[in-house]
């Protein structure tokens, strides 16, 4: 029994260690970090549940298996156990409440929408998706295709709209995604992106070349950003 617990622990630890290399779990913006925090928190709580189930499962299956010795046993019928059932109703509820509170807080901060981030300050970019390319329009009215440049440290505010079908704007290293629709403009914000080069992609299936509807993202210093805008 102890050995199985140890193996589970070991795989758990090695899994967690491996996770720090994973893109989404090691994000490069504050928005992404909040999301990663939620992922870690839910993973931790769920790991607890998983371990309890695995241990009970292994224990019961091994202990109560059919053996020649038990051949003629007739198991006692147990109707149920109110207290036990109550326990495994209440504990999940408590765990879920622990998870629900930060979920609500961060969701309220981050949710994209038609009326989201109206008063927010930051670098505004109009994003237009169409089969199968991305257009980015900056504050000075200049446009670039399939290349997005952002200044580091400043909140980036995206106004997203599609020209044809539904697309989804996603830069895994920075933060989660948001859809683009032909009939309305959504607004999304990424806080405090860190310097670096990232890959953006379309995450909502949009037709033949959906897989190739990608764009390059560069987060640069304030000066480089100004230079880039001037060069457009």
């Amino acid at each position, binding site marked *: 029994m102890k050995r199985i617990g140890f193996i589970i622990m070991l795989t758990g630890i090695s899994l967690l260690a491996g996770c720090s290399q994973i893109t989404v779990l090691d994000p490069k913006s504050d928005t992404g970090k909040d999301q990663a925090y939620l992922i870690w928190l839910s993973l931790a709580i769920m790991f607890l549940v998983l371990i309890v189930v695995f241990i009970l499962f292994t224990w019961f299956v091994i202990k109560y298996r059919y053996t020649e010795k038990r051949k003629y046993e007739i*198991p006692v019928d*147990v109707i149920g156990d109110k207290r036990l059932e109550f326990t495994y109703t209440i504990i999940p509820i408590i765990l879920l409440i622990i998870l629900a509170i930060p979920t609500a807080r961060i969701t309220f901060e981050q949710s994209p929408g038609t009326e989201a981030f109206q008063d927010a300050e930051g670098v505004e970019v109009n994003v237009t998706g169409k089969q199968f390319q991305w257009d980015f329009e900056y504050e000075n009215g200049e446009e670039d295709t399939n290349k997005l440049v952002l200044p580091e440290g400043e909140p980036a505010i995206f106004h997203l709209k599609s020209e044809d079908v539904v697309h989804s704007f996603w830069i895994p290293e920075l933060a989660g995604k948001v859809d683009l629709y032909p009939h309305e403009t959504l607004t999304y914000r990424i806080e405090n992106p860190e310097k670096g080069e990232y890959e953006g992609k379309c995450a909502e299936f949009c037709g033949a070349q959906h897989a190739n509807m990608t764009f390059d993202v560069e987060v640069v210093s304030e000066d480089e950003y100004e230079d880039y805008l001037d060069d457009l």
Partner: protein
Amino acid sequence: MEMFENLADAPSDVIAAWIFTAIAGILVIIWVLKKRKLPVIWEYMRTTNHRKIGTMYILFGFIFFLRAGIDSLFIRMQLISPNNDFWVFQADKYNEVFTTHGTMMIFFAAMPMLLGLMNVAMPLQIGARDLAFPYLNAVGFWLFLSGAIVFNIAFFLNSAPAIGWTGYAPLSNSLFTPDANTDFYVFGVQISGLGTIFTALNLMVTVIRHRAPGMSFMRMPLFSWATLVTSFMILLAFTVLAIGLYLLMFDRLFDTKFFQGPDGDPVFWQHLFWIFGHPEVYILAIPAFGIFSDVISTFASKRIFGYASMVISIILIAFLSFTVWAHHMLVVGLGPMLNTFFAFTTMTIAVPTGIKIFNWLFTLRGGLIRFTTPMLFALGFIPSFVMGGVTGVMLSVSAADFQFHDSHFLVAHFHYVILASTILGIFSAIYYYYPKITGLKLNETLGKWHFWLFLIGFHVTFFPMHITGLNGMPRRTFTYDAGEGFTTTNFISTIGAFLMGISILFMFWNLVKTHWENKKVGPDPWDGRTLEWTVDSPSPENTFEPMPVVDDLNPLAKAKNENRKMETTNEHRSSPIARDSIIPFLISMTLGVFGICMTYEWYIAAFVVGAVVFAFFILRALTDEKNDYYGKDEGGAS
């Protein structure tokens, strides 16, 4: 004809499929003629018996499962390495394959196999002699098959839909997919959905009104409970889908403005689709829960732990499943209020599901666990499903879902829950009920090979997919670059997929071997606990003669423990009236032809074919099988 236009430049996979189908078709015809099976086929085409219809449901569901499974192997081959070009499966060909894989697995593989099992087992479990409306049952089955054929024809005409099984507008509108491809999706799913609604209605009336004497609701086996609840969900969910498809059809054929134009709203399609789509996930899972409850109880030789809370949980899950649909739409921009609301409702589903998991575990405690093949599938389900369940809770965390959404993490999650529950459940039930269906018991050794290979293959495929997704791979993409960190995990996933494929070969071998040896078994090969194990194997057309009296949740086990036979009675309600008829087959197939006419916008032909459908309707109304049974006793209370 425009129907065959796309065939002129058919890619090699379509040609290969034609050749394969032609050869297989000829072989089947030769076999049928040689073995003189034509009368059997004719019998099954006209049957209204629940076991026979259930068998056909399972058989055809399994054939479509194989096809959709082969599609998944194509998907995995294309994704095995970065920038890969496997056969023809790039760009729109790849999109066709995953659309077909998803649509077929959900509508034409999982659904019919579950409905088939309900058809076979539920009446036997509750002591009903047949479904309440045997004729309607045949109509429901043939409608499913007709819709499935319509959908499958698309591929053979090189016109398979490429819009994802979710058919998101406006990509599914005629502006972006003007060809017949998407219409095949619309009509194929619509026709089979109609059949599903009829069958659900039928199952529901059967459970409510045809239980044996003494079989109160709280003595009903959990699979029958699952059937009742699932049927109720089907009636609500599939109806909403039917209207969604109805509106999409109008948009495509008559240029209406539901999902396109200045006031059209693509998000409305998503609402309609997911109001169907989320309950659908539980429509697939709840019957499997029922199967596992019965299987675990049988092979732990113990009644199910916490029966009442099991029943309440499935009812709660069913109810909650209608309140969570927008968790598929958290990145649609519904705003923080709705995002949070749907996150919370989604989390609450974990509670009744958790109760079920622990009840199964505590059923095992104190039991005498026999590791038969059905039980292995049930035991494999518990940890696997819990892994899918916990990622489900993670996905419900709305802000985190901005990252998970539409990535391979999501693909891993839903395959974990659907495979672990539905597919393992179906396999478990096929092994469990095979004696009731055919009178034969499948080979246990080969069954265990099937189980272990499938279970290992399943985890090898889908566990790494979580990481692929967290590394940033979106779903429904046919290629990726070497530097993106997707290479290793994708390679492992492909190996796992082939392990699952090999496991199916073992199942095949098992089927062949079992029928070859043809060793009949008695009514009760598993030491069962409930009514279905009191009738002969395979179940005869006139079951429960005389009618048993039920005095417990596990009446057969109780009788065995007390060393007595079950009590019987001759006092029972009137049985459903059954008479063989070819009309259900004809109605359904004609409706399928109607669908194809509409697909190609041959409206005159569609009108004529539609009139034929109604003519069959009238013919049926005038030759009702009840004609021979009613009015025999005019002195009655008329």
